[in-house]
């Protein structure tokens, strides 16, 4: 493998400290490396620079050079090269580092400039923080506290603007709170490639709106809510539901496709209120689809299996259900249907079960058109996990045709399905009727209805684990909320089944299980749940480079480059 070339470094001096930063870095990012805050609103690391809020102003100077001789001009007092300070503040976001550049991030000039901008931003702001969803995570609040004067000289009437415009099905705009930073406009144009937002009117009366006849309805519209530095753009779903400071944040992974978008679950007392993206520059930058965010609604959906284990439709206990399942399994002629939505840990445990039974395993493929951004063609988050753990060795197909044939031929009498609806995967009601089904799952469907043994398990947001995304990057997620009463962690169920079949128990928490996984899965030999970086770990994908994955290009993934990247 060829090592990435060292980026050209440029040495700049920030508040008296020299630091070498990659060429092309702007002053905000350079200062961040020194833990210096350059407050800003319009700048966003993943969008073009607009330079309009003027909050990020810094004082800037360059080493003095004699124009005639081109020789450095020295300062006799310090013995160093003299610095020519520009008499007006410069914007940090739009200033790219240059060799020898000097920056002051908190001189009197800078403080005055920030105080002025803060005052200006607040004079026409409604200051309705007590009823504003953004309160608690509002840049205007934070920076007014940090950099404002703390009093107001404004005695005029404030501007009046629309308070609740529906920009689209999921985003509500309060124009009075908008500080006109244009982040949402740039996001729509540059990232979502859906140029629908713009300003009408001029000056302080400028008003954000959709272009005539258009709506903000693309599947990435809620990112505008995330990046809006104030409470102007709000999620219609989350609006007025909960104060953000009451919410617990848990790391998770978007389960809608193999991209593996990093996300955060926001919950309180076991109830999830929203999902937002978590920055991972190698996967999703700072973005996430709207559809991925709404998957939290599955957790408390009406068809959630929550009434505890059942045998032949009658309520049972977990131990009885396990015993009943073991009895069916011991009779032989078993086939397992695993899931590309299950975690690496669960797939590993299922593989153990398959080995114990000597049973065949199939997976159900889910594919659809990718959106070239953060939803890939492979709509399972973890098909690669099943390859890595050895649960499967070939890519799955959408229809379980082989299994159907085996049922018809009488070769299969019992099926364990880990969360997959066999009817949706092509088995007919007649075929379902011919076999005994043991179903471990979260939601009701034709398979749960036909199951002899039904054991309700946990949703991704209720358990910990890892997924391997399309880049072969293994990424972890944690349990955000407890599962409903009567549901059992999938790992517990699988381990109990193993024991009931005469195998040895597996640790049922991820920390305990990982040493076992690392000891038996070559690709994961060096890994452990606890030490996996938050941004994931790239696995060596070469063993699977020959497989014809159904993938198109996404934000940080090119099909052809997959093998190289790993």
């Amino acid at each position, binding site marked *: 493998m060829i090592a990435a070339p060292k980026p050209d470094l440029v040495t700049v001096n920030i508040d008296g400290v020299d630091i070498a930063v990659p060429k092309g870095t702007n002053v905000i990012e350079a200062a961040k490396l020194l833990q210096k805050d350059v407050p800003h609103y319009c700048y966003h690391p993943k969008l073009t620079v607009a*330079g309009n*809020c003027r909050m990020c102003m810094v004082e800037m100077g360059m080493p003095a050079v004699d124009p005639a001789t081109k020789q450095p001009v020295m300062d006799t007092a310090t013995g160093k090269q003299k610095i020519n300070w520009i008499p007006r503040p410069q914007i940090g976001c*739009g200033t790219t580092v240059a060799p020898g550049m000097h920056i002051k991030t908190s001189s009197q000039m800078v403080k005055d400039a920030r105080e*002025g901008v803060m005052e*200006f931003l607040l*004079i026409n702001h409604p200051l309705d923080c007590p009823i504003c969803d953004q309160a608690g995570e509002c840049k205007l609040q934070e920076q007014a506290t940090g950099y404002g004067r703390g009093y107001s000289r404004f005695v005029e009437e404030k501007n009046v603007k629309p308070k609740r415009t529906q920009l689209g099905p999921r985003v509500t705009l309060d124009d009075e709170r908008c500080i006109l930073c244009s982040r949402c406009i740039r996001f729509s144009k540059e990232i979502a490639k859906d140029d629908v937002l713009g*300003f009408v009117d*001029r*000056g302080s*009366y400028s008003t954000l709106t959709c272009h005539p006849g258009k709506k903000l309805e693309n599947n990435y519209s809620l990112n505008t809510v995330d990046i809006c530095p104030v409470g102007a753009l709000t999620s219609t779903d989350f609006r007025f539901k909960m104060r953000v400071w009451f919410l617990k944040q848990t790391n998770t992974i978007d389960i809608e496709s193999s991209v593996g978008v990093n996300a955060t679950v926001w919950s309180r007392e076991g109830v999830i209120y929203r999902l937002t993206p978590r920055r991972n520059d190698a996967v999703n930058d700072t973005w996430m689809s709207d559809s991925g965010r709404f998957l939290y609604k599955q957790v408390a959906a009406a068809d959630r299996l929550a009434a505890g284990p059942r045998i032949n439709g009658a309520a049972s206990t977990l131990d009885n259900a396990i015993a009943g399942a073991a009895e069916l399994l011991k009779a032989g002629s078993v086939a397992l249907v695993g899931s590309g939505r299950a975690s690496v840990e669960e797939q590993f445990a299922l593989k153990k079960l398959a080995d114990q039974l000597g049973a065949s395993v199939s997976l159900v493929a889910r594919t659809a058109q990718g959106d070239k951004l953060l939803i890939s063609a492979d709509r399972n988050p973890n098909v690669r996990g099943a390859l890595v753990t050895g649960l499967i060795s070939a890519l799955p197909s959408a229809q379980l045709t082989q299994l159907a044939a085996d049922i018809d031929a009488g070769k299969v009498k019992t099926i364990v399905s880990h969360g997959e609806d066999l009817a949706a995967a092509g088995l007919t009601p007649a075929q379902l009727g011919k076999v005994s089904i043991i179903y471990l799952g979260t939601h009701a469907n034709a398979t749960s209805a036909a199951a002899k043994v039904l054991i309700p398990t946990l949703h991704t947001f209720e358990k910990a684990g890892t997924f391997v995304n399309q880049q072969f990057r293994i990424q972890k997620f944690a349990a955000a909320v407890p599962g409903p009463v009567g549901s059992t962690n999938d790992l517990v169920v699988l381990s109990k089944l193993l024991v009931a079949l005469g195998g040895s128990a597996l640790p049922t928490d991820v920390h305990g299980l990982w040493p076992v996984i690392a000891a038996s899965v070559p690709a994961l030999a060096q890994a452990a749940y606890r030490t996996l970086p938050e941004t994931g770990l790239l696995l060596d994908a070469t063993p699977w480079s020959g497989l014809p994955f159904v993938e198109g290009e996404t934000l940080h993934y090119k099909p052809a480059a997959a093998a190289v990247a790993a």
Partner: protein
Amino acid sequence: MPAPVQTRVIFKHIDEPGYTNDIECYLRHGGYEVLKKSVARPPAELIDEVKKSGLRGRGGAGFPCGVKWGLVDRKSGKPIYLIVNADESEPGTFKDRYIIHQDPHQLIEGTIISCFANNVKQAYIYIRGEMPEGARILEKAIAEARAKNFVGQNILGTGYSCEIYVHRGAGAYICGEETGLIESLEGKRANPRIKPPYFPAVLGLYQCPTIVNNVETLCHVKHIVDIGGEAFAKTGTPNNTGTRIFCVSGHVQRPGYYEFPAGTITMGQLLNEVCGGPLPGRKFKAVIPGGSSAKVLRFGERYKGKRKVGADMVDYDWGVEDVPMDFDSLAMIGSMGGSGGVIVMDDSVNMVEALANINAFYSHESCGQCTPCREGSLWMKKITTRMVHGEARPQDGALLKGVADQIPGRTICAFGEACSWPTQSFYLKFKDEFDAYSEAKKTLPADRLTLV
């Protein structure tokens, strides 16, 4: 004292009886002869003439035209565009429209010569939205010039081709700012661009190198190429070469436009001798020398310091009347020559009310992109409007200054300066009037002019 005699170069035929804006008339007066001579010369030579002429831009900033042309990125391989800034919107300025209405071919000839000099194949005239008649005249004039092969394909058989398109604005002052203009020309909202990186000379129209010049500037180019840069530089004073057109409005006997060699006439000569002095029974109180954004001058104040005359530094001690009308002298006394719009106010004017008017204009025209200008301009307007129409407070003047001081030097474009300099200078020069306005207002006549 007899009034100083004008030197009309650009305005030579303006208001001349019998002079019409069609090409035949222009040709009868020697039109397009300079173009014919120009296309036979190497382009670099023409640029050199402009450099030698010392011509400074007439759009407001007074930037040397030759230097601007020298900054154009000619190595990128991208096409170079030239844009004629005919947005003329700075209050007090009315010169470009007369050129366009009465002598459009002078502009077209100057434009094509400038295009040839800079290897420009496509030029745009961006004309203010409120000047539909001007746009029609230009369209007709370009069609006439094309018919005579002065514009279009293979101009005068030289193999050089250049098109000129007229583009109408939609009525916003900010479209006069060159990068706002470029955005508007690209079909977008006229939000000025950040510089760096978007210097027009490198990343202008469609991200290609672009020259933006004022109408009057490009007319001067024609005369420079005609008589030669050095000869041109003999008119006016060093560093302030050529003639300047002054658009005098307000409280003088004879408002209007007057063309003089730059720096050879003082403010006093212009207002008293050329424009006939104040209205009967009135005295001059204040004058804004270069368009409404220029800092106001108060009659009676004195400006002292040292200035360069030839190689020497000499003392000066001027009243407003003594100031030579050129870029450098006006800058020296803390204002600017700007666009040449001279706005005169006599002792009937209340300065708070005058400022209220100016503030209303600028708050209406701020594009709204950057915080200090957007919020500051409207805040200042709200204060002055309240002072005039509502309740004025003794501390309002100081507050106005406090607001204005937070704007200049902190914005994307020079509109930040344009909208704050009036307030800063009005308060500085007429502090007494602002501080006393709340009291004075009680005795102001009820039938005085109503304000915006």
